[in-house]
């Protein structure tokens, strides 16, 4: 079973309108590289010039903020769900 990646509205223009895409299991860094290969431009939106996750982007693995896990080294396995969610919300 693949890993499901949920795509937020600001990125859907790059994913041909798809709100989720399926990917092979790997760590987040590799997954973002693979996303970039399929949908050019996505990586620049998620990763800053220092190679870190952009400040205003949150990524969750099965609902858990990856900043509480291993960041971009966090591994996702088959059946997992990854959500990319804009951080500017709430309050």
């Amino acid at each position, binding site marked *: 079973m693949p890993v499901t990646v949920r795509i937020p*509205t*600001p990125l859907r223009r790059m994913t041909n309108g798809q709100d989720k895409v399926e990917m092979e299991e790997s760590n987040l860094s590799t997954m973002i590289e693979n996303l970039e290969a399929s949908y050019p431009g996505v990586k620049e*939106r998620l990763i800053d010039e220092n190679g870190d996750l952009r400040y*205003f982007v949150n990524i969750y693995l099965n*609902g858990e903020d990856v900043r509480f896990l291993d960041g971009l080294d966090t591994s996702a396995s088959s059946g997992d769900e990854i959500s990319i969610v804009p951080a500017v*919300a709430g*309050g």
Partner: protein
Amino acid sequence: MAFVSGLRCRECSREYPGEALNVCDFCFGPLEVVYDYATISEVVSHDRIAAGPLSIWRYHDLLPASGEDPVDILAGFTPLLKARNLGERLGLKNLYIKNDSVNPSFSFKDRVVSVAATKAREFGFETIACASTGNLACSVAAHAARAGMRSVVFIPSDLERGKVIGAAVYGPTMVAVEGTYDEVNRLCSEVGDNYPWAFVNINMRPYYAEGSKTLGYEVAEQLDWRIPDHVVIPSASGAMFTKIWKGFNELACLGLLDGVDAMTFGPDQNTVHHPAITTRMHMAQAEGCSPIVNAWVGGQNQIRPVRPDSIAKSLAIGNPADGIYALRVIKESDGSAYAVPEPQVVEGIKLLAETEGIFTETAGGVTVSTLKYLAESGAIGADELTVAYITGNGLKTQEAVEEVVNPLYIRPSMSSFEEALQGSPASASL
């Protein structure tokens, strides 16, 4: 009409039309309202404000939604009370309480929701929604009822009963989520992507957050168009903190403060700092959830999210969206940030109640205990004009102060009464 020219990303300055958007497509930064201040400065005046309604809509020229027919349950224009007793206790001679706990749904959230609901209706939405720590759910449901709109409120399932009932009574669809506020918020960001709803604190957030500026305007107006030397403000996301600062600076730039010359805003309206604005901004958080205070104390300019574990549930946001901007305001205003030890939250509630007759919720307890700390540490001078913002009502968090209930149990007879009275505090006044 509203004097809005569009939205702009606070991080990369990309411009967007004034629509229901909150995030920059490019860098995911927050979008902020851009105003036509040149036109505003031509129309706004003390007289025009004074002629307006006794609600936040008296400042409609400075709000991003039209004041002609707002969704209004009369939020705002709450009392600014000289706090003589509390001031005496803390050694402060010029202390005021901005009592925003007496808004129609009993918290400051009515200010932001009135703006967001008005804007949502302007955009043609039929449903307003929110991710809430409680107070916001109450306000969204109340405004939806007033506007004849539907509402959907998402809350953590462990909220205080007073907030759950205080929202449910208005008839929203209530979704109780087994999780923290941050999890509710994340879920709502995803829900908002798939449903045609106006989430007041997500896709309506640029407009919504502006409503908190009125907490700055009102205090200045109630002080005869002066600003305080110090303000103490409770913070969760940090949005209100930054907007009160923005409100003071807007008044100064528009020449609306006593003895202050107007100034142009410059290209970045959100970071404008008029030199006459010397108010020191003090942030109050509870130790069980103090990500912004942690960053301030640690000298960092970014926020490390925390998992909240605090009695002050209305401040329990572990990943505060406006945290970095609040840090900048603390720095620019030469302010401070303090995390109140959890047991002192209730002490703060009781102190305010016993000295000034104001019953606030846990967030207010955090504010009062921070004020006490600032007074005792000498950060606030005895004569300096200080305003503490009390933003929510104690009737919603009664569980926190259950211990105060300790009546004299008697039989219905004079002898039983007199026996019980002996040794009680009331006997001292006999």
